[in-house]
C-alpha cells in the first residue's frame, strides 16, 4: 500500500482577520452558521436573490440564493446554504456545500460536502470531507499541484494477511 502523504498539508495563510469596526454593520449579513466565532465579516446572498456573473470580494460568503457564473473568494470561506443553487465554478480557501452546485470547486484548504449537499463537478482540494448522504458526481484531485511528496509502498510485514489468504478459482461459480 502506498504511504500516507504526511507532507501534503501546506501552510495556508489564514484569512485576514477583520474587526467589526472595519465594516458598517448595516452592510453585512448575519454571520455564517458554520463559521467559527471570529470577527471576520460574512456577506450573504439571500434566498430570493439571483446573480449572474462573477462574484468576488474580501470576506466570507454564504449563498442561499442562485448564482450563475463564477465565485472567486480565494482567501475566504464560501458556504452554499441548503437553499443555495450555484451553477458556477467556486474558488475559495474553504468551501462548504449544503445545497446544490453544478460546477468546478477549488478549495485552497478544504472542501466539505454535507449530508444535504449535491455536487456535480470536479473538485481540487488538499483535504476533502464528505458527509454520509451527500450526493457527488465528478472527480476529486487531492494533489493540487504541490511539490512532489514522497509516496511509496508501505513495507510489507512478514505476517501479511494476504500471505495467508486462501486462493480460490471458482471458474464455474
Amino acid at each position, binding site marked *: *500500500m502506498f504511504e500516507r502523504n504526511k507532507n501534503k498539508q501546506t501552510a495556508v495563510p489564514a484569512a485576514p482577520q477583520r474587526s467589526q469596526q472595519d465594516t458598517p454593520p448595516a452592510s453585512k449579513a448575519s454571520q455564517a452558521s458554520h463559521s467559527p466565532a471570529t470577527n471576520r465579516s460574512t456577506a450573504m446572498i439571500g434566498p430570493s436573490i439571483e446573480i449572474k456573473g462573477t462574484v468576488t470580494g474580501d470576506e466570507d460568503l454564504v449563498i442561499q440564493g442562485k448564482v450563475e457564473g463564477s465565485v472567486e473568494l480565494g482567501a475566504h470561506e464560501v458556504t452554499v446554504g441548503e437553499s443555495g443553487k450555484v451553477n458556477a465554478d467556486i474558488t475559495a480557501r474553504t468551501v462548504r456545500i449544503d445545497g446544490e452546485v453544478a460546477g468546478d470547486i477549488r478549495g485552497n484548504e478544504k472542501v466539505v460536502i454535507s449530508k444535504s449537499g449535491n455536487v456535480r463537478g470536479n473538485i481540487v482540494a488538499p483535504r476533502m470531507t*464528505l458527509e454520509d448522504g451527500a450526493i457527488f*458526481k465528478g*472527480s*476529486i484531485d*487531492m494533489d493540487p499541484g504541490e511539490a512532489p511528496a514522497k509516496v*511509496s509502498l508501505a513495507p510489507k510485514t512478514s505476517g501479511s494477511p494476504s500471505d495467508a489468504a486462501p486462493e*480460490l*478459482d*471458482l471458474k464455474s461459480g
Partner: protein
Amino acid sequence: MNERQSSQLLPDLFESVAEDQCITVLHLGPVLPETMEYFSSFRCKLHVNDLFAELPLSFKPGDELTVQERMSSLVSFPEDTRFDVCLFWDLLNYLDQDGVVALMQCLRPHLATTAMAHAFTVHNIRSPQRDCRFGIVSDSEIVLRPRHHKVPEYAPHSQGKLKEWLDGFDVKRSVLLAQSRLEILLELRV
C-alpha cells in the same frame, strides 16, 4: 448499522503503485465518508460515478437507447484519464451481461497498463440480496453500510461468466467471505 470487515485483497490492490506516483482511482458507487477520509490522506485523483443511481441499466422493449449507448453517456472521462484502481464493489451484481460488457467497453481506453480492480460478487448465485454501500476504512478494512432502499435488478453472476464478460481484466485472486460473498481482485490483462 455499520459492519466492518477485514479485507485480504485490499493490500494487493495498490501493490503496483510506484513510488512518487499520484494514482487515479475510479469509484463506481456511492462514496462513503470513510472512503473520502481514506483517500484524502494520499496523493490521488478520485473519480466518483454512482451508477447505482442510474439502475436499472438493462434494455427494456421500448427503450430509445441501447445499454451501450446509455452506458456511454453515463461513463465518460477526459481523454487522457487513466485509472490505476477501479472500485466496482458490488455493482456487477446489478448489471446484466450487456451492462457489464458495455461498462468494460467504456472503461478499457481509460485503464492504465497496471490497472487493478476490486469487486464483491457471490460464490452462490442464489444467495439472497444484501444491498450495502461499501467504503474503505484502512489499508485492510472495509465498512459495509446497509442501504435504506432495495436496489433493483439484483442478478449476481458466477465468476466464470464475469471472467468472460470483463474483457480486459483477469481475476487475480478471490477470497470467500461470510454470507457467500466473494471478494475478487482483478488485474488488467496484458
